[in-house]
């Protein structure tokens, strides 16, 4: 059920001498959203805007934003004593 954004999926292709091309893998970390909805977040350090279109969506996130994003949680302040703990917004894929 994972879906990846086409833009973030692209690897960069570098032209070397003699017509040789080197494929450079995308830099960053793939994060999967646990949030059950569309989630728009901005990287604290890079300032980049990331859109997760639903729970289970995987997006390539700039390495410098990962640490901050992984600390973010949602839910958990349950009203009725069932003890549900906050969930992280993202998990590393």
């Amino acid at each position: 059920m994972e879906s990846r954004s086409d833009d973030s999926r692209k690897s960069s292709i570098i032209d070397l001498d003699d017509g040789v091309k080197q494929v450079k893998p995308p830099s960053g970390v793939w994060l999967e959203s646990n949030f059950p909805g569309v989630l728009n977040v901005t990287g604290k350090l890079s300032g980049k805007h990331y859109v997760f279109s639903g729970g289970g969506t995987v997006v390539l996130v700039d390495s410098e934003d990962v640490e901050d994003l992984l600390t973010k949680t949602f839910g958990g302040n349950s009203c009725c004593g069932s003890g549900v703990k906050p969930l992280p917004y993202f998990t590393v894929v």
Partner: protein
Amino acid sequence: MSLVTGTPLGTITSQEEIYLEGAPTLYIQDYTADPLNNPDTDGFYWGLSGTSVYNVYEIGCVTDVSLTENITINDVLCDNVGVKSTVQQRNFLELVFTVQSFFPFTVLRHMVKGGAVTRTAPTDKFGLGPINNNLNYMVYCPKVYDTDVGDYVVIHLHKAKFVDAWTWNMPFGNNWTLTGLKLRAYADTDKPSVQQFATIMRSDASVIV
């Protein structure tokens, strides 16, 4: 308590002096997900396990919770002797409740049959448009009746849908409530026929040995 006289002979099962009180906790999850026990070692389907794609939602602060059934019932009337039997068929179960928690919208939107939530700090938004009739939920209702030892009962509805019109009450000087919520549980033909509508379970180590 034994009667002085008149007790039936033979094997008799009597009921226990354990009484249940209060509403269970209600959880829902998209029907597309598999139940936690799919099935368990006894062949029963029940329980939920949340994933990033299929979150489990806890419905908060419920009141006026009741579970009813809808059946078609017809008497077999013989014109010479009267009613000789009654034919019954179960149509669906209905879990009716009122909710007093409105947040987060990621839970509320399921109950009011709304669209997906978009979160952009500091806002959550969702719309009310046409109702998606393809959304079904598993409903899991555990009730712990002895908190010291963790004895509990569970009602698990396999395939339910929010039906009927809700009412959003906004009284002055009192908390908001969402009334008219009704989860109708249909026959899930993917399950064994004896548990098509629901699985009901009790866990009590001191009694069930």
